[in-house]
């Protein structure tokens, strides 16, 4: 290879897209390292505190697309204080200062401010794509600056962010000359939408393929939007509490019939069942369907709809569909690859006849041979069912099971669910992500450590008996990257057994476990390349550092540790102590 000039090698590298592969290439030799880093356009940073922007820019001067992740996963469930960190601002400042030709920015669980968005919009002339997932800290004013200043903007995708809606005219801020939009998603905005501005924008965007509106877009507006964008591939609709009158309904259905390219449908928070029927004409084309916000729709309406969706590959649904509904899915959706069943009624303490059980899960596993990803919330499970599922579906890559009641055993045998999950990890040799629940002893972790060779992410809650459980996992799962544990009896012995293991992992989260301050301090001393963060909401830094011997035995509320090449971060709030 070294007989070729650099440009040729670079051209060959262009064909290699995956981050893992490119990282491997850069390790081959010095010259390959240099060619690779100078030609690298896309960089993925799984933990924004593992590196700093200056070093990133130094290594990859040709950067065009950056993906950053901030807060740990459990922040989704309110286990991380809001001010914990994950600020994107220093990154944007550094990239702007270095005049990087940034075109695409994708952020997950980061804090974004209007100031950041304004700076972003003014600093990168070729900026094309902004994707924000589960972020917070900004308002529609920030969106307005992006709309106004990013002249080549193609994609603005806002997924499940907390955005303060100033009910302003941000949609008006797209200049009339802006015609390049391919994707617009503002479904998470809670306020009113300027419908006229939206319609004009959609009308002048012939390349628009993905449009996801928020709840404030009523039926007649949706009809007009669909009429001027029949080329849509991906549609997210608003909220339609009241059933439409005859005329509106017919108009809507006519508009939908013309959307022959439509493959993906979502939205539907609060939708009257009749509105759903307007979409029947395109059901058979759908490959992706997300009805998981539609709490009002009863199971039978869902079933009737799904019966027509024979090409479905991805389905997100509420458990109101019931086991019977899942049996219908199993017999209809033979192409199904990913299924998520969310809980619909979390306040009901009584038994709910329409929730899903192990029966639905087994039916799906039997009927859908291509299934590889599942997230399943249910009230009960059995080992027998999990063993059957494992036998039916050895191709799982992601298997996340959440039994709503912590520590719940197999409801027919009252045993723990160790055997069931054991069967899953043994049969599914390609399993990369696993979440376990129900009554579990150390044994399940022995199985995981033994069989889950490809496992990269493991979520544990209310499980295990002793440190052995955690040790089985740390010792056995060679590819483990993210381990998150809550309310389980793992302590210092497990934490400290193999410090070097954390070099190979992105992060470890432990909350309400048995680790003590003393143990964490010892870890931090032995591993200076780790940031060991203690999160105690009622404490501040000074108190923490003054602790004497006795206090070191005190348990740590929340521990988050991650490898880093840039040492302790400087933006930690008072409730976070970095040891």
């Amino acid at each position, binding site marked *: 290879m070294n007989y070729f000039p650099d440009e040729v090698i670079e051209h060959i590298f262009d064909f290699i897209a995956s981050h893992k592969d490119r990282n491997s290439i850069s390790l081959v030799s010095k010259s390959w390292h240099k060619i690779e880093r100078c030609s690298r356009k896309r960089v993925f940073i799984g933990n924004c505190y593992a590196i700093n922007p200056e070093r990133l820019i130094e290594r990859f001067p040709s950067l065009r697309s950056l993906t950053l992740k901030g807060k740990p996963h459990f922040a989704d469930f309110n286990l991380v204080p809001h001010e914990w960190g994950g600020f994107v601002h220093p990154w944007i400042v550094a990239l702007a200062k270095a005049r990087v030709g940034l075109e695409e920015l994708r952020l997950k669980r980061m804090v974004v401010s209007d100031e950041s968005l304004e700076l972003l919009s003014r600093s990168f002339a070729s900026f094309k794509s902004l994707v924000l997932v589960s972020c917070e800290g900004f308002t529609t004013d920030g969106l307005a600056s992006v709309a106004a200043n990013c002249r080549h903007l193609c994609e603005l995708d806002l997924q499940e962010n907390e955005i303060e809606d100033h009910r302003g005219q941000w949609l008006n801020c797209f200049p009339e000359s802006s015609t390049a939009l391919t994707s617009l998603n503002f479904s998470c905005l809670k306020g009113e939408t300027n419908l006229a501005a939206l319609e004009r924008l959609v009308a002048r965007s012939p390349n628009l393929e993905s449009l996801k509106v928020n709840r404030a877009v009523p039926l007649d507006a949706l009809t007009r939007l669909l009429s001027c964008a029949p080329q849509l591939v991906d549609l997210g609709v608003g909220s339609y509490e009241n059933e439409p009158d005859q005329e509106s309904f017919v108009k809507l259905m006519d508009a939908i019939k013309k959307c022959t390219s439509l493959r993906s449908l979502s939205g539907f928070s609060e939708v009257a069942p009749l509105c759903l029927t307007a979409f029947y004409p395109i059901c058979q084309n759908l490959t992706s369907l997300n009805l998981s916000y539609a709490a009002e729709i009863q199971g039978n309406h869902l079933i009737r709809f799904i019966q027509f969706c024979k090409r479905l590959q991805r389905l997100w649904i509420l458990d109101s569909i019931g086991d019977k509904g899942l049996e219908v899915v199993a017999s209809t959706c033979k192409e199904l690859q990913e299924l998520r069943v969310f809980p619909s009624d979390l306040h009901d303490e009584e038994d709910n006849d329409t929730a899903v059980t192990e029966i639905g899960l087994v039916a799906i596993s039997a009927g859908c041979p291509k299934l590889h990803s599942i997230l399943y919330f249910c009230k009960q499970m059995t080992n027998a069912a999990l063993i059957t599922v494992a036998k039916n579906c050895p191709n799982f890559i992601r298997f996340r099971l959440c039994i709503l009641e912590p520590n719940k055993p197999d409801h027919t045998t009252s045993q723990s669910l160790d055997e069931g999950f054991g069967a899953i990890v043994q049969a599914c040799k390609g399993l990369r992500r696993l979440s376990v629940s129900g009554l579990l002893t150390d044994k399940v972790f022995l199985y995981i450590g033994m069989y889950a060779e490809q496992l990269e992410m493991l979520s544990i809650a209310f499980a295990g008996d002793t440190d*052995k459980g955690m040790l*089985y996992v740390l010792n056995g799962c060679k590819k483990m990257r993210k381990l998150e544990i809550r309310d389980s009896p793992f302590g210092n012995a497990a934490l400290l057994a193999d410090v070097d293991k954390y070099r190979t992992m992105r992060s470890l989260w432990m909350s309400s476990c048995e680790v003590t301050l003393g143990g964490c301090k010892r870890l931090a001393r032995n591993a200076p390349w780790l940031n060991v963060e203690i999160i105690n909401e009622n404490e501040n830094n000074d108190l923490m550092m003054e602790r004497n011997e006795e206090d070191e035995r005190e348990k740590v509320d929340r521990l988050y540790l991650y490898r880093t090449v840039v040492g302790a971060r400087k933006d930690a709030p008072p409730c976070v102590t970095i040891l």
Partner: protein
Amino acid sequence: MEGCPRNICPKLLDLIPQGREWYHEENNNTDQEKKLELRLGPPGGYEEDRSAKKNTETRNNNIMKEQTEISSPSKNHLSPCNKANVSHISQKRTAPGPVVGWPPVRSFRKNLASTSSSKLGNESSHVSHINKNGDGVTQVEPKREGMFVKINMDSVPIGRKIDLNAYNSYEQLSFAVDKLFRGLLAAQRDTSSGEREEKPIIGLLDGKGEFTLTYEDNEGDKMLVGDVPWQMFISSVKRLRVIKSSEISSALRFGCRRR
């Protein structure tokens, strides 16, 4: 490598049925369990504090009794450490009542079931969620928990849920009930004519309307809504029912609760 006895193979494969029905009989499972050679030694004192947890105490005892200690070369000092901590852990793990961050769903999914009936409740929890202006409010859970109770209405097969914390008076409640059920009631009464007339549901509290609002209190008694001060009502109400005014005496007498 410590703690990982690789030379012991649990007979997991025995558990994967070869073309058998997956409804095992119970004793089959126990036989399979016993075939597994691997045993894990529980820390002592583990069983005592599980009494807090209903249903699992005896089951756990059974599991523990089937297992014996592994003679592990290292980590014997683990046991005393865990013994001391286990009681604390058991309590933590088996604490009844709402647990922070559980089940693991995003906040906006938690209120889905009653979004339409309690937008007020949602907004307040949303505001407290992002209130981080340095007020010192760094809460983990939204301050205002919704108080959702079931509400059913005669002649409407589908029940609803209503967030009582969203209201401050009987009048507001009555108005909300009307809003919740008006459409559903009209749908039930829809005849062959295409037009559906939606009549407001009034007179719920004074006995003068076609329907009357009743509730079931924490003692299981069925009561008319409106007699006691609002706060007292809130503290004792368990579920609501809108019944035909004509049925009042029979409902209170024979009150049958359908699931």
